[in-house]
């Protein structure tokens, strides 16, 4: 089963990569871009036996750093 983990920087954590992307979009002439924040998408292919609690533990222990990042789990329906 495919599960997607979206990892994003917490509010208030500086994102210089997002800023650089923002500048690049502006220099390409795109208008109306107010802010850019860069995150990560991690795709897991999991056995059906893996519980939601297990996925949450994977996120907390490794996939996200809870000091600076939030995560969202998007689990495909079985």
């Amino acid at each position, binding site marked *: 089963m495919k599960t997607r983990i979206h990892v994003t920087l917490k509010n208030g954590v*500086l994102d*210089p990569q997002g800023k650089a992307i923002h500048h690049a979009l502006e220099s390409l002439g795109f208008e109306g871009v107010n802010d850019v924040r860069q995150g990560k998408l991690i795709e897991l292919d999991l056995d059906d036996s893996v519980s939601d609690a297990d996925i949450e533990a994977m996120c907390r222990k490794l996939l996200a750093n809870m000091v600076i990042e939030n995560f969202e789990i998007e689990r495909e329906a079985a």
Partner: protein
Amino acid sequence: MKSAVIVFPGSNCDRDMAVALEQATGAKPHMVWHRETELPDGIGLIALPGGFSYGDYLRSGAIGANSPIMREVKAAADRGVAVLGVCNGFQLLTEAGLLPGALLRNAGIDFICRDVALKVASSQTAFTSGYQSDETITIPVAHHDGNYFADNDTLDRIEGEGHVAFRYDESVNGSARNIAGIVNAAGNVLGMMPHPERMIEPAHGGSDGKRLFDGLVQALG
């Protein structure tokens, strides 16, 4: 004193660290591969060297912090053994939960590789006992992810409890409150982004880094 350098795939300052430790302790350190599950007996000082463990995949230090040997490093730190993390070693220590906070991408996004002026924020730790408080020293940095971040409560706490060891004398990488190095509450774990092992003899342009190792070894007895 017996010391150890933990070697990860992608470590690149492990041999420089070994030279610095041998100079200070008079004995070659044990080079311990990260897959090992035990440290040699009687180790009094563990160094986590600079480099790019696991290619900085996921986050700097994130994968290496879960290497088998890190369980032993944590257990040793809990017993009071001195642990020194430099650059990637600092990133590993925060990822492993041995030090608070995290190291973000440099605020100016560039990799920074140059000598920097550091202020010794506290000489009251074993790691900084070779310096005077408020002294300015010169140590090189070489990092992409050295921008120290912690929430304000954590920053207030580590400042209030005297756990800031070094500060940049100017803004270098966007670090909160110009923090360049911190110790844990027990004072036996130091993480710092600058590389003291790259400043240990006149040919390096100075020897301010050597004083960290000499002071530390003397403090540890």
